[in-house]
């Protein structure tokens, strides 16, 4: 039997949701598993790094890496897998645009370590012990990866061929991506493997989105009785739809929750946060500074809202004075 194409899955700074989404292929996973040889998948199979190191360079057809990059170990694995794979795919929002973890780019490494190891209410650490990259123990040195100063998307560390967006990507997109790879008819390098249109275009509520939005108040979803039929923005609830790529099958919207932007921007947009900022602010129904500021005051955390999944890949990348 000829060798089946080899594929690998790896996770970096991730929550595990992307791994779940692979399992969510359900019976389709059999089809995928039959067509390919999974050579590395730490969450499900017992292959180690040394096995990957022993593979010839370029011997894996495609590797899907999920999670953003925060530690030196994740960087090393990204480099290793890049070398061993013909095609490297950033899988999910974190690998694609930094994801939720990159909201940590608003804080310095020191602030983060202090909060986590000293100040969190559930932490008792009187000696203020912090993890160290090297620690002598019993005649040997114990080592830990370096904690980097920034959270990065995969392509800020190594070259990436394709992107599968989403938090997490849908099984449908994954299946399509695998079939595309196997077909050998590869799209241009750098392609995001999802439609290049805005979420609003495929939204089941788009008919109720007024051409001229006039927002007089921003309402928070958990304080609001949400009309299940009407466009969220028309109800004054922030929806990232206008600045987000489609392809998720409007899962949140069908669940009566607004889009939070996990599919990232379309190819025409460089900075997703700036784009939604522009759309929302332009639609505020006021002309006087005080009135404008009052309405905009209904958005308590613009960075966390507009860049929920994309701060690492935004134009500024982080809080510039951390």
């Amino acid at each position, binding site marked *: 039997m000829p060798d089946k194409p080899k594929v690998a899955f790896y996770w970096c700074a991730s929550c595990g949701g992307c791994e779940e989404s692979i399992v969510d292929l359900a019976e389709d996973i059999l089809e995928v598993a039959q067509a390919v040889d999974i050579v590395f998948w730490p969450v499900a199979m017992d292959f180690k790094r040394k096995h990957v190191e022993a593979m010839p360079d370029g011997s894996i057809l495609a590797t899907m890496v999920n999670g953003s990059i925060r530690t*030196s170990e994740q*960087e*090393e694995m990204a*480099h*290793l897998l890049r*070398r061993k794979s013909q095609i490297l795919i950033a899988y999910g929002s974190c690998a694609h645009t930094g994801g939720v973890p990159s909201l940590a780019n*608003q804080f310095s490494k020191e602030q983060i370590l202090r909060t986590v190891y000293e100040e969190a209410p559930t932490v008792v650490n009187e000696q203020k012990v912090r993890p160290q990259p090297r620690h002598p123990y019993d005649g040997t040195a114990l080592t830990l990866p*370096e904690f*980097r*100063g*920034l959270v*990065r998307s995969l392509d*800020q*560390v190594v070259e990436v061929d394709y992107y599968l967006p989403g938090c997490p990507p849908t099984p449908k997109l994954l299946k399509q991506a695998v079939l595309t790879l196997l077909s050998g008819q590869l799209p241009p390098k750098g392609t995001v493997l999802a439609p290049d249109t805005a979420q609003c275009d495929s939204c089941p509520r788009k008919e109720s989105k007024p051409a001229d939005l006039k927002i007089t108040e921003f309402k928070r979803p958990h304080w609001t009785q949400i009309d299940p039929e009407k466009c969220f923005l028309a109800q004054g609830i922030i929806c990232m739809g206008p600045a987000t790529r489609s392809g998720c099958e409007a899962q949140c919207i069908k669940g009566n929750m607004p889009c939070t932007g996990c599919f990232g921007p379309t190819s025409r*947009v*460089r*900075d997703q*946060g*700036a*784009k939604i*900022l*522009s759309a*929302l*602010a*332009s639609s*505020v129904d*006021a*002309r006087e*500074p005080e009135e*404008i*500021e009052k309405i*905009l005051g209904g*958005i308590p*955390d*613009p*960075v966390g809202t*507009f860049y929920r999944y994309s701060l690492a890949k*935004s*134009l*500024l*990348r*982080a*809080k*510039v*004075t*951390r």
Partner: protein
Amino acid sequence: MEDRPITDKLVTSADWEPLIVAFFCNWCTYTAADLAGVSRMGYDHNVRVIRVMCSGRVDPQFVLDAFAHGADGVLIGGCHPGDCHYVEGNYKTLRRYYLLKRVLRDLGIEEGRLRLEWIAASEGEKVAKTINEMVEQVRALGPLRLTRRFKEWDAELASIEAQARSEEVATHA
């Protein structure tokens, strides 16, 4: 826009000049800047003017991109409220300006680095005054220099790449 070469790590006021990117509306502020030039009203030459058809054309991405490419300040000049050639453009700018200022503040860029000013075609003097004021204000804030900061942030990556390359050489030797 290139980040000018700097020799030492601590940028002093002696080797740094503020760089301001100005987006001026074709119908008013740009014409006013022309008028200031023709009337030989001097203004600081630290400003690079970009003509746009309306201040409403200034996508917040342009402002962030200017900062990301090394601007220390960004100035937007548009027509007075009620005078917009396209009726509503400058009101859109005003609304975006307030929200953008909050985002910039939250991301560590001081308030004084972004300014919006209404300047009519006849107000050449106001152009000169606004630019001079802004240059002084940004000078007081000091360099922002994001191109340089980005390089510093990524210095922690370079070592890994060098290491990966040397390992590669070792395994192929």
